[in-house]
């Protein structure tokens, strides 16, 4: 089966279900026309079918649903109120859609049924109610009985007999009954059926061959399988001791079957994300053709397995996000070229397991979100008040796009922009306990990150022992294992600033002793071997020292209850083959602990460079609201907080009154951004430098901290007053080019320095 067929089939299955729901919703809506939720749900369903049919190139389907959607849109906006005629019209549309879907399923094509009547009715209804009754949508299919009589294969009485049989409860088709009565040959029935129309009802439809199973049922099955496995273990171990060959063979069979059953039930729940992603390239391509753009799509991690429920839940949101990225994110080729970007846009989709969750990212290098537009739109639509807007940060503004009814699209295109959008995306993600985060930079692009807990996911994990207990480490965090023999262990682990490190090839690896972290006693015999599990989380590497390393196995991640959630070192729990509960370590949280402890070097390379482990003190400051800037403390004379009134203007320059003198100063935000920083009239945080008789002050927004940090490397190309970019306490921090900053304050500060400085 090719990809295309698969996409169409999924669409059919999904749409059939939606249509059944739609019938119920429409009827219920008639009872309670004011239910906006219901109206919204109907609207979204039709919107989805319309959208997908557009991509799959089913123009008739698209046309029919488009008029329906327009009518629903007016209803939703309160411009029209629902009448019986409208309900009839909408139900006729649902029937027309169902007919088209059946035809597509049977033949792959839309067939040539005529839907102009439905379209006409719906179009008319959009302009307001009218007394005319809705026309019937389609000519009914000829009845099989009529056909049989017409062609003389059966008499009218035969057919009536069969219909009566059906009426008193015979579930079979008329043809089958007549075959049994000896009136017809089986072949004749098939012939009649093929005459009846495009649709051959006897053929098993996709709808019937795939089955939706309640996830709760799968949960129950999973639990039962777990119990079966435990019982099996018990039986197998009992029988093994008895020497009864017959029982032994039976128990071995039981063993194998239970294992397969377990695998099967697990597999029933898991699917690669590719299920959703395989249709993305085509969607992107189609939109590109539609809106005349070119986009290069990168997909990474399509084998990442997700629980079925999660796959289903993220399908629509992901499709929507990609659509948005192409339609709104990526600019037209001309605009891109003018902005100095390649004409071809780039969209990347990535999925990965990461510290107990699945992270999905959708990145584009498009225009980014225009916050000014977002603000205006939110105001115009009355979603926020001007008062609320005033207190909002850029991140808050970005999040406005998640409000219901928000859409910045300037025109309603066929692709997107009807205001069903990010709110639905967010609702769907949150429904499965996930989170969505948008980061955007004007002109640079947008990154959307979705984090989904893998409560139900199955992941490979390594079992380790520490302090007498077993813990699971997600394989995704695992880089390598190191085994140290007794005497080796004593020498290979060194301490730097009381933090243990291990030299792994060229790098110094910070270590965490798991039993220490958990407050347990190590069970490692004196002089016994020691294991270092080399882990990675959030680009940080560290070694976890454990007593023993066991096997790797697939584990089912179970969520922790609230009594234990607060501990913070565990990502979940799982049940091992022997029935024991085993805690899963949260590697990300452990890594954070390393960073807090100050032992973790930013990267293994940086550690290698500073093998001598020289450190220097850095003053961590804040500028421009959120930029962290480090200033080497070594040459600093004093740190001062001066009142705003100490600031003096001397011509175009700002000077400081400091200890009875006027000293030159520079605002660090001006130095590193090359522009002017924000003003304000609060106290000034000043870093004072003195050299002989000369004194200058550098003004920062705020002084945060002083840290000891391994000596950093100057970046080869320094620019804009920044000497290097390093990571301090897991935050990106720039190091100020002090010399340039001082020169900015006092160009002659270093004059006559040649003799003094080496």
């Amino acid at each position, binding site marked *: 089966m090719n990809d295309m067929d698969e996409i169409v089939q999924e669409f059919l299955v999904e749409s059939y279900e939606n249509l059944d729901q739609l019938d119920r919703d429409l009827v219920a809506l008639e009872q309670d026309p004011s239910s906006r939720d219901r109206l919204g749900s109907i609207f979204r369903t039709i919107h989805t079918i319309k959208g997908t049919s557009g991509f799959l190139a089913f123009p008739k389907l698209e046309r029919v649903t488009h008029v329906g959607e327009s009518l629903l849109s007016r209803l939703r906006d309160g411009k029209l109120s629902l009448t019986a005629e409208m309900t009839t019209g909408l139900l006729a549309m649902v029937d027309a859609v169902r007919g088209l879907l059946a035809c597509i399923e049977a033949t792959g094509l839309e067939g040539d049924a005529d839907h102009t009547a439905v379209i006409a009715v719906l179009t008319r209804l959009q302009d307001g109610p009218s007394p005319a009754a809705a026309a019937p949508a389609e000519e009914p299919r000829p009845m099989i009985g009529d056909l049989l009589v017409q062609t003389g294969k059966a008499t009218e009485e035969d057919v009536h007999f069969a219909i009566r049989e059906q009426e008193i409860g015979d579930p079979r088709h008329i043809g089958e009954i007549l075959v049994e009565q000896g009136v017809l040959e089986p072949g004749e029935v098939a012939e009649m059926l093929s005459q009846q129309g495009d649709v051959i009802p006897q053929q098993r439809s996709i709808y019937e061959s795939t089955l939706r199973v309640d996830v709760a049922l799968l949960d129950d099955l999973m*639990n039962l399988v777990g119990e079966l496995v435990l019982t099996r273990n018990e039986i197998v171990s009992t029988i093994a001791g008895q020497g009864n060959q017959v029982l032994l063979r039976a128990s071995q069979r039981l063993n194998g079957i239970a294992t397969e059953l377990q695998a099967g039930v697990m597999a029933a729940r898991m699917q690669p994300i590719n299920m959703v992603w395989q249709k993305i390239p085509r969607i992107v391509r189609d939109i590109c053709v539609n809106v005349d753009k070119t986009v290069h799509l990168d997909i990474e991690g399509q084998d990442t397995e997700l629980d079925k429920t999660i796959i289903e839940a993220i399908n629509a949101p992901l499709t929507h996000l990609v659509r948005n990225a192409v339609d709104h994110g990526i600019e037209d080729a001309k605009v891109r070229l003018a902005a100095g970007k390649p004409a071809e846009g780039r969209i990347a989709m990535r999925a990965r397991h990461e510290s107990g969750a699945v992270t999905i990212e959708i990145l584009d290098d498009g225009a980014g979100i225009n916050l000014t537009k977002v603000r205006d739109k939110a105001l115009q639509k009355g979603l926020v008040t001007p008062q609320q807007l005033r207190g909002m940060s850029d991140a808050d503004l970005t999040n406005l796009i998640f409000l219901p009814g928000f859409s910045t699209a300037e025109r309603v295109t066929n692709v997107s922009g009807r205001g069903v959008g990010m709110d639905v995306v967010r609702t769907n993600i949150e429904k499965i306990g996930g989170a969505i985060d948008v980061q955007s930079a004007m002109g640079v692009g947008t990154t959307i990150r979705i984090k989904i807990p893998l409560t139900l996911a199955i992941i490979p994990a390594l079992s380790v022992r520490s*302090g007498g207990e077993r813990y699971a480490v997600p394989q995704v965090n695992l880089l390598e294992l190191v085994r140290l023999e007794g005497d080796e262990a004593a020498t290979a682990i060194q301490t730097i600033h009381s933090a243990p490190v291990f030299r792994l090839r060229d790098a110094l690896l910070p270590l965490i002793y798991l039993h220490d972290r958990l407050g347990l006693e190590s069970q490692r015999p004196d002089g016994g071997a020691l294991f270092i599990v080399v882990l990675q989380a959030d680009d940080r590497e560290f070694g976890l020292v454990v007593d023993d390393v066991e096997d790797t196995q697939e584990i089912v991640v*179970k969520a922790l*209850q*609230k009594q234990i959630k607060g501990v913070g070192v565990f990502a979940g729990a799982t*049940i091992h083959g022997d029935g*024991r509960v*085993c*805690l899963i370590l949260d590697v990300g949280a452990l890594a954070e602990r390393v960073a807090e402890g100050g032992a973790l070097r930013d990267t293994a390379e940086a550690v290698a460079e500073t093998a001598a482990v020289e450190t220097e003190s850095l003053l961590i400051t804040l500028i421009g609201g959120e930029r962290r800037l480090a200033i080497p403390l070594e040459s600093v004379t004093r740190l001062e907080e001066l009142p705003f009134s100490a600031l003096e203007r001397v011509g175009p320059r700002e000077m400081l009154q400091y200890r009875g003198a006027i000293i030159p100063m520079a605002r660090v935000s001006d130095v590193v951004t090359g522009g002017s920083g924000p003003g304000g009239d609060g106290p000034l945080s000043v870093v004072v430098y003195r050299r002989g008789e000369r004194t200058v002050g550098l003004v920062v927004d705020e002084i945060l901290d002083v840290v000891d940090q391994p000596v950093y490397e100057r970046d080869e190309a320094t620019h804009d007053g920044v000497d290097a970019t390093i990571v301090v306490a897991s935050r990106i921090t720039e190091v100020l080019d002090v010399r340039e900053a001082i020169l900015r304050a006092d160009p002659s500060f270093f004059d006559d320095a040649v003799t003094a400085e080496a």
Partner: protein
Amino acid sequence: MSTTSRYSTFSLAGDLYGVEVERVQEVLKHQPMTPVPLAPPSVAGLVNLRGQVSAAIDMRRRLDLPLRGEDDLPMNVVVRTDDGLVSLLVDRIGDVVDADDSTFEQAQDAMTGPARQLVRGTYDLGEKLLLALDVDQTVDVNSRQNVGAGDRGGSTSTTGRGGTRPGTPDTSRT
């Protein structure tokens, strides 16, 4: 005519405790347990209840009673909560009893320690008093209510679930 309430009972350090029978999923003999380092002290560990991972709360610790000996294996009273099943570790499982609601008394004043918050009240069973536990409070091991509760016992209880129970102390004391 007096009504009765049905309790599943168990013993702890010589006293008889009970939880509403409809909150109890099952009672089990001692189960192997996985300790959880760094968890609140009353969390004894995690048990596998037919494929479901559930927290086990040592009721002796929870009620600040003297601890069991090493060899005294506790039994499990598995209760249903909003957050799934939670297992209460108790000394011994008792019978299911029908307690006469007219004998119910709020007992905060007679209790000390954590029991002030966790025991909703007592029923007089004739030969013994039944201490009725508030399940939701009991499983909420992260709450700070047990700290410094000495001077507000009476007022908290009347706003709690006790007030809606049949047979309040007023009727029983006449």
